[in-house]
């Protein structure tokens, strides 16, 4: 298996024999992990945090994707891969060098890459005479291939060719699927699910209304899928909701469906199984007593009780007469001690 190149710095795992093959640009670990019996023990706190970030969690964050170039690829495919990488920028890894991998025959290489770089989505591009301009969209569950769809590019307009300004990196795009094929045909349904998974951004609880700038539109028609991406311009309309105007932007593809590998129903069901009890995070230092009052603890610094600022009670203020008597007494004492 040829070594894939990475776009970033290398990592040096001294204890690993396997890791000398591939480097993910996101892991900057030195030999701080001991590897034995298939269990990795962390030697430093940083490596411990790294291992914890890769463990399965109750609620998962955003999926990362790896974009791989195949054994032979044309100009179209390379540009297409770069464009998709630009769309998915922070959470994607691009392997630019050639990898002699055939995903439909043997998916162990892909699974190995996914395990090393902790990516569950992949896009594999290749070109040969039998299947020109081939893109394989796929996803993994537990580092084994779940679904794979092979799409051929018939027509491609790259980001470079369209001379408009693009929206910033990492904006969550609006996704629109059109066409009754996406509803009726089983394969198209699965493909729709896969494309949603691939292109939807991180899961957010709120979105800035003015920041809805990017829309990806997929149309399924006569066995072909047209993917277009537009920039959204919000224009004034009579009421609160703006009127939409679209501007051509970004990569546009005309796909034709080729082979696919769909997961069996049980595997698909297992992949959807959610863990029980996703509890909300508890805030520290808050407790409730028997009456239901909310209590917390404050740790105070030492206070000088003489200089406390209390309420001023006029009646307790020292009167002038008393004051002079005190000073007189003090003065009377002083000369006595002097003597």
């Amino acid at each position: 298996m040829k070594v894939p190149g990475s776009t970033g710095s290398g990592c040096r795992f001294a204890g690993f024999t396997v890791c000398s093959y591939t480097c993910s640009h996101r892991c900057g670990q030195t030999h701080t992990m001991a590897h034995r019996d298939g269990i990795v023990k962390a030697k430093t706190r940083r490596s411990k945090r790294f291992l914890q970030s890769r463990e399965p969690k109750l609620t998962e964050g955003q999926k990362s994707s790896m974009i791989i170039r195949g054994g032979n690829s044309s100009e179209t495919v390379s540009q297409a891969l770069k464009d998709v990488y630009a769309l998915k920028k922070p959470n994607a890894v691009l392997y630019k060098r050639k990898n002699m991998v055939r995903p439909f025959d043997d998916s162990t290489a892909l699974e190995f890459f996914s395990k090393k770089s902790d990516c569950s989505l992949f896009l594999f591009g290749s070109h040969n005479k039998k299947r020109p301009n081939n893109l394989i969209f796929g996803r993994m569950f537990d580092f084994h291939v779940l679904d794979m769809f092979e799409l051929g590019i018939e027509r491609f307009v790259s980001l470079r060719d369209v001379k408009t300004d693009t929206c910033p990196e990492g904006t969550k795009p609006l996704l629109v699927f059109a066409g009754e094929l996406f509803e009726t045909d089983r394969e198209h349904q699965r493909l729709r699910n896969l494309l949603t998974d691939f292109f939807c951004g991180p899961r957010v609880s709120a979105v800035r209304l003015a920041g809805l700038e990017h829309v990806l539109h997929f149309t399924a028609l006569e066995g072909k899928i047209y993917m277009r991406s537009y920039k959204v311009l919000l224009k004034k309309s009579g009421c609160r909701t703006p009127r939409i105007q679209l501007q051509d932007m970004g990569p546009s593809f005309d796909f034709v469906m080729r082979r696919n590998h769909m997961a069996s129903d049980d595997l698909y069901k297992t992949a959807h199984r959610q863990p029980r009890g996703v509890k909300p995070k508890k805030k520290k230092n808050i407790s409730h007593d028997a009456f239901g009052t909310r209590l917390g603890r404050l740790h105070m610094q030492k206070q000088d009780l003489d200089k406390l600022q209390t309420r001023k009670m006029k009646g307790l203020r020292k009167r002038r007469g008393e004051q002079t008597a005190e000073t007189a007494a003090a003065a009377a004492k002083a000369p006595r001690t002097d003597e």
Partner: protein
Amino acid sequence: MASCSFEDVLAKAERDEAEKLKGITVSKELDLEFDPGNLLAFDKNRIDTREFKDCKREDFLRSLARDNTQLLVNEIWKLPTERVEEVLVAKLPDPTTLLPREKPAPKPKPPTKWEQFAKLKGIQKKKKTNLVWDEVHKEWRRRWGYKRAKDDTKEWLIEVPENADPSEHQFNKRNKAKKERVARNEYNRLKNIARAQKIKVPGMGLAPTPRQSKAELAQAVNVAKISTASVGKFQDNLPKEKTPKNTGKKRKFQPLIGDFSSEKQKQLDLLKVMDSKKPRLDVTKAVNKQMREEDMESRHKNKKDFGKKGRRGKMSGKGKAGGKGPKGKGRKPQMKQGKR
């Protein structure tokens, strides 16, 4: 009359509304399916293929996209909004499309030995405060860790308890006890992990691993050999196996108070060696060392001049051996002909 004008007013209001909404209404046969949590919309309507082929493709697709996006944006604008730092933000509901997980759900960890015991006895976890009042420094300090409240290790005075040996080192005793506690804690933690992952952890070298080195195998063989009732005394050796000598202590020291005559003899010998003018010499060692240095030198020379001078014969080491000391371990090769 009044009712007429009332209806007129209503009709006019409706017409005004319709005018306003003209910009954003889109008419479709079937309603779209929305998933605002994912900013997703799905249009099930049939696409007119004739229209698609007649008009230019891009324009048709763009107008279709515009309509669908308008409907999606209408849907998003219906969501509750709030102002976060001068920015208008819409709160999204949970996504409705079921997407598969990346990795299987984490399994709950089996309870540790202490947790099992606590459950059995009904011991509850008491929530402890983060900071504790330190009388010595008169401030709030952590319960444990860096700059903690009652730091045992920072004490400069330890009273010797009454029943203790006066010559015992109290500070060392405390440090050793701490090290033992730490080691025991670590051991118990690893045992808990092993129990959780159902890995058998017997003694050293005996845990089955996929690849075992020669040393580990040898260790395993030795441990197995002496694991009999008579500690391996009656175990036969394999044909070419040698019994390892000196298993156990690596260095042997003479007892402090033992044989007086031998000790006396040893001391006298030592004094004799120190007195003598001639240096003590281990001839074989010296010769070997000399030969090794000559080899190194000749190798370097061969590298420099490509076999021109050829290799000079090995000079006999005896003549130069006089310059060597008895234990020539740390000597540099340049000090070959040093005068003593």
